[in-house]
């Protein structure tokens, strides 16, 4: 454990004393409806978790202090040099926080951003950290359809409203286009989808889970939705056979490779018809994990898989544009091949 730095402690004290002054500054309403003071200048942002880090990176990569978990080399090559390899800073997650508050202070952030649940626990955590550190802490609503709103709040907090507006618009336009085309598809033409995780493909996301937000956005019938819940669960292969989904979407390479030759899965309609799809995950997962704006390109990818007739767009071009706009790195053809193959 690092020795408590006197400067950090002093900085903390100073910040605490400065807190009342901040209260008079301009404020903005964050994703949880809290009034958060807008800092005079923002040069360094501390991400509370992976979804926030990705959101900040896409808007203002230069401001991101570091990553909750260091990026692997194969992920870094899709990110701006000098930023994708910034250090690991841990995450702020309440009781089990791996980012010690003194270490947060030592990183001298002007702003702390979290994106995710706006439930009471997270609101109280934000309040407490903001009071303890004197650093404005904005909590953004991590639900997928709230992404444009999150960009706009982040844009105002950082003074980068123009780029925030561009990114928010891109998302909104995507959402509107996709929603519009799907609205015309009658329910019986919408495929049932089983979302498979884990090496056996027997972990799945329940009805209300954040892991399947992209699926529900696309109006697909989640096979596991008869059981409502907010998280993941295990099911048996027998149950998958009984659901007999039209499409399987997975994030697990080992599962996607084994399922095609596994005689026990051969009875599932999606396997029989070759509709098992491995989700791209570079530099971040397209469908799920971490649940952030990286899912915006995943939405197009999934839409094309589920409704090929309605979505004639070229996924390569979409992915290249998305990477260029959001990650500010244009992938080469070979890199795109790797992304779309779902490896990494």
């Amino acid at each position, binding site marked *: 454990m690092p020795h408590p730095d006197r400067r950090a402690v002093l900085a903390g004290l100073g910040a605490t004393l400065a807190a009342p002054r901040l209260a008079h500054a301009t404020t903005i309403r964050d994703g949880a409806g809290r009034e958060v003071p807008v800092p005079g200048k923002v040069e360094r942002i501390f991400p509370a978790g992976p979804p926030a880090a990705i959101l900040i990176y896409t808007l203002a990569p230069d401001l991101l202090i570091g990553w909750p978990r260091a990026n692997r080399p194969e992920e870094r090559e899709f990110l701006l040099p000098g930023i994708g390899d910034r250090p690991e800073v841990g995450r702020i997650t309440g009781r089990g926080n791996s980012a010690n508050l003194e270490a947060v202070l030592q990183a001298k952030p002007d702003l702390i951003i979290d994106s995710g649940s706006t439930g009471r626990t997270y609101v109280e955590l934000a309040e407490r950290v903001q009071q303890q550190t004197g650093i404005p802490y904005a909590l953004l609503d991590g639900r997928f359809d709230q992404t444009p709103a999150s960009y706009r709040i982040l844009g105002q907090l950082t003074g980068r409203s123009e780029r925030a507006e561009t990114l928010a618009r891109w998302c909104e336009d995507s959402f509107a286009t996709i929603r519009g085309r799907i609205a015309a598809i009658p329910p019986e033409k919408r495929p049932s989808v089983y979302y498979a995780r*884990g090496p056996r493909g027997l972990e799945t996301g329940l009805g209300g889970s954040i892991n399947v937000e992209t699926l529900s956005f696309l109006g697909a019938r989640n096979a596991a939705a008869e059981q409502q819940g907010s998280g993941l669960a*295990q099911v048996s292969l027998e149950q998958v056979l009984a659901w007999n989904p039209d499409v399987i979407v997975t994030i697990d390479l080992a599962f996607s490779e084994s399922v095609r030759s596994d005689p026990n899965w051969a009875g599932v309609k999606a396997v029989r018809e070759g509709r098992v799809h491995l989700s791209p995950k570079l530099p971040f997962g397209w469908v799920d994990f971490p649940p952030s704006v990286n899912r915006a390109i995943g939405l197009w990818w999934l839409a094309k898989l589920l409704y090929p007739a309605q979505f004639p767009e070229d996924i390569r071009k979409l992915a290249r544009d998305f990477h260029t706009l959001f990650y500010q790195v244009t992938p080469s053809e070979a890199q795109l091949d790797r992304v779309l193959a779902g490896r990494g």
Partner: protein
Amino acid sequence: MTSSLRGNLIALLLLALAVLAAFALGRFPVAPGDLARLVWSFFSGEPSGLPPQIETVVWNIRGPRIVAAILCGAALAIAGCAFQGLFRNPLVSPDILGASSGAALGAVIGIYLSLGLFGTQLAAFIGGLVAVGAVYAVGSTIRRGDPVLVLVLTGVVVGSLLGAGIGLVKYWADPYNQLPAMTFWLLGSLAGTAKPDLIPLLGPVLIGAVVLLALRWRMSVMSLPEEEARALGLATGPLRIAIVAAATLVTAASVAAAGIIGWVGLVVPHLARFLVGPDFGRLMPTAALLGGGYLLAIDTLARTAAPVETPLGILTAVIGTPFFIWLLASARGGWS
């Protein structure tokens, strides 16, 4: 009819009922008539004429899972029996010497390092053996006091250290992918059991069970005070090592296959004692049969109650706790 024979018949009957129910019930509907045709075709060799999906469900999904549940239940029950005898304490369960905690640490490390299915199971199995080996090694270096008591205390201490290790690896884990996998593993499940999983389970369980069943008559002597056992000419040291090794082998194998399933090793020996009395020679076979049937019944419940699986460790605790309290309250000298 002797009480032992009657007890074993009851245990066998319960096991048979559990097998029947397990084959008949499930989320994929299989009509009783189809099931009968499948069984007929199995014994006669004639094609059943049923859709291949039904054959898959019954033979490849339910079948291996039923075998695994019986093996794990029997393993945990006889290991519990052996440890309860060895430590002369009815409240001892198979993880007393850290077999489950060691296996759990091995498994979470396996998931953390993305070792894959087989690698994770192997890591769990090795973790269980190493943990108990370490407990035994540390316990044997301490020369003061009752060796059995020292062993138990060492087991408790090492077990809690292993628990801390599990916590640390979970804390490092990626919260979106690895952490849920670890949580599922630690709650215990047979959800993904397939035929290939039976081989690494069957071998160790059979070896351990044969050793324990062969030693069962001597275990009755072990449960006497140390001096009396020695006076009867029994080399308690080597016998103790053999019992610990065999019980650890079966526990580690079952935890590696099914995750952490508590209570079976604690409750089932008591049930068996209820049926055939406290003598280990009679107790062990009955406990094995009952344990297999018990875990199979619970696993059938776990996979039929809801579309999503209920973790086995949760069910065994929810069912085991009140049952055990009832046993404690109603037992009339069932132990000695």
